[in-house]
């Protein structure tokens, strides 16, 4: 019911005596001490969640995948993808189509729409260069059908796992996921930025503090320059270069940051008419296709862009033309070209780099984070020579500028974010090992809560945490009319749904749940032609409580046996037995049926015996039986003449007196006394009718059922 789970206490969870399932496990399968192939596994209370499913751009084929073999894909309940970048989403088709995964996948609307385009492009681009393709176009299309969408702030529940997402600010549709399992909350930030830019909102600060925060650490302890400064540097470099007749190359990943840069450039060109004759090219058919997505999901963008949309589409650039391939480039004078990929590994940006890198008038502006092992990373260090794609080594004369526009949080943002959020446990992922280490030290030193635990697990290194999960139940309805005091008993139905518990009286079950209680009335007719009183007599021998129900003179005679089962003579040919189902009644009714059938079988004999038997005679018979049974057990048992029910047992000279009526045993030998007492009790319970109260053994039995 409702959303209020047990509130997690915020700080200092003492690790408790670990009971199975109370262990929260977090394992990075990728992005542990590295940047790329984000994939973090978490499990708590037998519920498992996988965050992100990326590939490592510096590797190819299977080597680029996260360590999926560490987990059993079929056990994963939910897979949450934060944004569409390849290092967060590109192994998804593989995981969905080529593994045993059968859980549910969620991402935001914009992410899903762009995911489709970006992966198709990825498959196309890497064709040929990689033999062992992980998946093909068909797999991507199939994976689309399995991906479900979630809107920001929308709370969903799958299999007891509640989760929702916040704006992450990194790219269009980027989300931070909060997962709540039985009151323990884990926040996975993915890539996030706390700075609002031209079209994206800043990452939100979640309303609730999580127990564990899995956070990116891409920029470690570095600080970004203020946005205005960066934008000024960017436009200045470009303006100066083109003013001197040079060409500017901006290697950028096709989607995400590129749109932001284009917005900056378009705005700058509009404000500077003298630049209007210098063309800006944007060489990415993919980005062109994605424009429809950018135009549709404006709800995921900030107020500024949405206000602009009211007038005209800001993504309808006035000064930027798209460039299909290098052949279409009329490379005669100064120009600005934005081309992918961002790492200069191959493709158009590399072709242009090869063409332009020897002219010192030209410039290359690297606008974002560059992955280790790519050419872009190499040229940032400004080496004297570079190797072209054709193998020649040439001098690098082109100016290289590194102006980071990548929407990752810097140290300032990370610190503020964590300071406000106050998670007791922090797990750093998505960062180079060194940066991560420095970040950890600095955070430990500066965070106000000195008990904060910061962990930096490597890939496949499992982090275990223990949470004392408190199970709270809500007693409602009749049961709760009065709040019980210390020592009072509470009993009722415990109903569990998801991770919420309710205690309900059985009568109220249908009110508070969709379940209902039932009652099965049974009526069985047994052929019987004898006298009804015989049945009564026989039943009395078995059950203590056999009461006549109706006035026997008028309606057909009826008996209530053991307070539960009604036996009624329907006519001269048959008897009906009625009762309402429960284990004891079923048993009683079975015995009644048996008795009646037995009477039927030996009708003549029983008929004679049954008539006119007095209480006294019955007593005497019972005594005889007791004596016989004791005799069989203790060999020498004699009745004491004159005294009703008294017997003397003598074994090896030890003598004991037994009163079979009251059950009192007198004997000097304690051992014998005890044995006699037990024997007598058992014999009596077999001989005497079953008393009404003695049913706790059944009760026990029933609990076992």
């Amino acid at each position, binding site marked *: 019911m409702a*959303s*209020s789970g047990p509130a997690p206490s915020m700080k200092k969870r003492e690790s408790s005596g670990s009971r199975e399932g109370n262990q929260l496990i977090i394992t990075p399968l990728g992005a542990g001490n590295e940047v790329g192939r984000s994939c973090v596994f978490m499990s708590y209370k037998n519920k498992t969640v996988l965050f992100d499913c990326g590939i490592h751009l510096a590797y190819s084929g299977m080597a680029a995948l996260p360590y999926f073999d560490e987990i059993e894909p079929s056990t994963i309940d939910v897979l949450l993808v934060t944004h569409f970048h390849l290092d967060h989403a590109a192994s998804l088709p593989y995981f969905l189509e080529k593994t045993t995964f059968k859980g549910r996948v969620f991402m935001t*609307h914009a992410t899903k729409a762009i995911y489709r385009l970006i992966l198709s492009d990825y498959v196309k681009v890497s064709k040929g260069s990689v033999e062992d393709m992980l998946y093909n176009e068909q797999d991507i299309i199939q994976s689309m059908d399995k991906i479900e969408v979630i809107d920001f702030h929308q709370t969903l529940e799958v299999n007891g796992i509640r989760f929702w997402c916040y704006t992450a600010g990194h790219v269009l549709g980027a989300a931070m996921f909060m997962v709540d399992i039985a009151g323990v909350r884990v926040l996975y930030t993915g890539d996030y930025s706390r700075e609002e830019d031209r079209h994206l909102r800043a990452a939100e600060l979640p309303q609730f503090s999580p127990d564990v925060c899995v956070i990116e650490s891409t920029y470690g302890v570095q600080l970004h320059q203020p946005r205005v400064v960066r934008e000024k540097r960017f436009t200045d470099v470009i303006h100066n270069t083109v003013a001197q007749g040079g060409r500017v190359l901006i290697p950028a990943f096709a989607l995400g940051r590129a749109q932001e840069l284009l917005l900056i450039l378009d705005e700058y060109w509009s404000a500077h008419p003298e630049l209007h004759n210098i063309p800006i090219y944007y060489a990415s058919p993919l980005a062109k296709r994605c424009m429809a*997505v950018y135009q549709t999901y404006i709800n995921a963008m900030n107020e500024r862009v949405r206000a602009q949309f009211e007038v005209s589409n800001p993504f309808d650039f006035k000064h930027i033309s798209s460039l299909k391939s290098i052949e279409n480039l009329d490379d005669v004078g100064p120009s600005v070209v934005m081309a992918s990929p961002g790492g200069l590994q191959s493709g158009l940006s590399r072709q242009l780099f090869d063409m332009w890198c020897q002219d010192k008038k030209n410039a290359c502006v690297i606008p974002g984070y560059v992955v280790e092992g790519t050419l872009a990373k190499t040229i940032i260090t400004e080496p004297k020579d570079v190797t072209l794609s054709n193998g020649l080594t040439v001098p690098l004369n082109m100016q290289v500028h590194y102006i980071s526009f990548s929407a990752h949080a810097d140290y300032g943002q990370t610190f503020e974010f964590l300071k406000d959020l106050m998670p007791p446990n922090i797990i750093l992922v998505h960062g180079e090992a060194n940066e991560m280490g420095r970040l950890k030290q600095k955070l430990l030193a500066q965070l106000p809560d000195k008990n904060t635990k910061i962990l930096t697990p490597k890939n496949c290194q499992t982090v275990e945490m223990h949470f004392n999960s408190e199970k709270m139940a809500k007693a409602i309805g009749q049961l709760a009319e009065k709040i019980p005091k210390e020592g009072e008993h509470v009993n009722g*139905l415990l109903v569990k749904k998801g991770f919420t518990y309710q205690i309900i009286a059985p009568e109220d079950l249908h009110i508070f749940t969709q379940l209902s209680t039932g009652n099965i009335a049974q009526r069985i*007719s*047994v052929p019987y032609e004898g006298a009804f009183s015989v049945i009564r007599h026989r039943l009395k021998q078995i059950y203590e409580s056999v009461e006549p129900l109706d006035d026997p003179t008028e309606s057909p005679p009826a008996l209530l046996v053991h307070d539960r089962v009604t036996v009624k003579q329907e006519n001269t040919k048959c008897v009906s037995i009625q009762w309402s189902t429960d284990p004891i009644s079923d048993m009683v009714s079975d015995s009644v049926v048996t008795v009646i059938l037995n009477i039927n079988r030996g009708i003549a004999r029983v008929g004679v015996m049954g008539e006119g038997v007095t209480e006294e005679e019955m007593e005497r018979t019972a005594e005889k039986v007791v004596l016989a049974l004791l005799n069989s057990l203790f060999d020498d048992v004699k009745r004491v003449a004159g005294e009703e029910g008294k017997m003397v047992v003598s074994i090896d000279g030890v003598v004991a007196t037994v009163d079979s009526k009251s059950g009192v045993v007198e004997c000097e030998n304690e051992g014998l006394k005890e044995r006699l007492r037990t024997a007598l009790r058992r014999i009596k319970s077999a001989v005497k009718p079953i008393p009404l109260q003695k049913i706790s053994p059944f009760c026990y039995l029933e609990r076992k059922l």
Partner: protein
Amino acid sequence: MGTSVQLTPLSGVHSENPLSYLLSLDGFNFLVDCGWNDFFDPELLQPLSRVSSTIDAVLLSHPDTVHLGALPYAMKQFGLSAPVYSTEPVHKLGLLTMYDHYLSRRQVSDFDLFSLDDIDAAFQNVTRLTYSQDYHLSGKGEGIVITPHVAGHLLGGTIWKITKDGEDVIYAVDFNHRKERHLNGTVLESFVRPAVLITDAYNALNNQPSTRQRDQEFLDAILRTLRGDGKVLLPVDTAGRVLELILILEQYWTQHHLSYPIAFLTNVATSTIEYAKSSLEWMIDSIGKSFEHTRDNVFVLKNFNIIINKKELEKLPEGPKVVLASMASLEEGFSHDIFVEWAVDSKNLVVFTERAQFGTLARMLQVDPPPKVVKVTMHKRVPLVGEELKAYEEEQNRIKKEEALKASLSKEDDLKASCIVPDKSLSDPMVIDSAGGLISSEVASPRIVGYRDVLIDGFVPPSTSVSPMFPFYENSREWDDFGEVINPDDYAIKEEDMLDPTSVAVLGGGLEDKFDEDSNDMLLDSKPSKVVSNELTVQVKCSLIYKDFEGRSDSRSIKTILAHVAPLKLVLVHGSAEATEHLKQHCLKNVCSHVYAPQIGETIDVTSDLCAYKVRLSERLMSNVLFKKLGDYEIAWIDGEVNETDGMLTLVPLSTGPPLHKSVLVGDLKLADFKQFLASKGVPAEFSKGFLRCGENITLRKVGDSKGATQQVGIEGPLTEEYYKIRELLYSQFYLL
């Protein structure tokens, strides 16, 4: 222990008046919906004005006038300043709807109840939420969680779930369980056993034909008219159901390669469609899916002309065409004008797609048989010319001069100097007095002939209707040999002047350029203009049809849904007195025993008489509990002893052995399902007279209705092996605890 819940209707009970209710949870006052009718009758808002200062939060459910129309007025006039919550589309489409209303009215009258600025101001502070977003209120409302859910009626339409301490109050009006072309069906059915459900009886007497048949008839009628060289008018709302109609027509036009022009005409048509294009995530899943795959946006319309003024409509080729124009009431706006123009031609067709509000022209035309003649008032804003203009200018000059004079006379009073601005001068009564002459005399003339003055032959409003804005004249017409006796005065053209147009507030940014240029000139320029009204008698010769595209669940579905949701307490609002009573009786019998249908201003207490307390379950206790799984639930019997520490109750295992408890059978047996189950086990079974005969001699029956607390199943038969076999199978349908 339970949360105290009270509800006070402010409008819209036992009638089809706009919706507005005051819901109070433990003293926190929600205003749920803030509707107004198309006449903007301030009388209707009386109850709201009395309580507006006590309101702590406003929840809006749908982006149309009857659900949010009064918001700008209430904010301006009643000092309503509470935070407003709605979904993103309700906010945006509601804003557009209000703009459209304002502009439609302003073009033809001196509408001054609220201005565009008031609309902007009212919508500025709306907190926008997404579906299924649990929003935790803070401050006074601490502990209350509000969550919007899909209602299915209009884009962004909301069922509000308000939760406090695990008790749910659900406000669900105008929901639709059917999936449509652009909307998902409601999720109301997924809520079970809420403490309170507030719902409407609007459609309680209304049953719908199948969707397919309705669509076919609708399209056939339109096509027939077009082939017969006629024109089709669909009076529609601004930004609600019209989206569905647009998709139907767009699809049909594309499929059949029709070339008849089709137009969507409102003051905000472009913005509406632009917004629809960017709100795919709020629509039905399939629309989102197709966009993700092919990036084809369904609201990129190929056949529609989206136009915002009548000039553009005239540019469309002559001859047959379809026009979707606002307002649906035909009381004002483009639909009004077009109707007057087209109604006289028998080739034409007017298709109503929703039941119009009481007292409106559209509602009168929807009666069967429709009236043959209606009287309408035409308004037009014309610039002043010739004499009038001269007089006006002189007047203005005189005012200015007087102002200047005054200003110079009282130089020390610098503030006064600013009064030279002409619009201020008019709003200043002193100046008007001093101005005298033309303007004041015209102001005094009866200007309120206006839009309300619509009369119809043979229209008798039902006695239950309350519609103070619609002046109803006793229908005592006389007939002589020449027909109806008429009063020539009724047809006299009444002229009136208007206030200085510059008093119109500055329009909200961005939208300006999209308004009708004509009206822009009129509204924004200081060019003097006036409203000219004349009454016309319109012969209604065109065909009129009504097809239900309201997108509300019909009577049968409402009843099924209510029975399924089975609230502990049910409150019925919005719907004619008849419909409300009908649904109330039905629900009393079949849904729950607490059904309320309060009157306006009557506060009902729907606090649940539910007791509850919280208790911690100790590990020791839980380790001995064996749950049985039943669908979503897991269930077990527990016996525990209460331990109290720091005011916290904890259940621990009993120190003594478990006591006896009455065993409980849990399960819900459906005889029909059981019959199939028996068949699958090789036992023949058939129904006869409400009994299920199983095998040879065993009969099974259900005693009492399903509403009862405990389901009673009876099994009967002679002592045979079969009996025990069937009993065994029956037992398997239940869980024993």
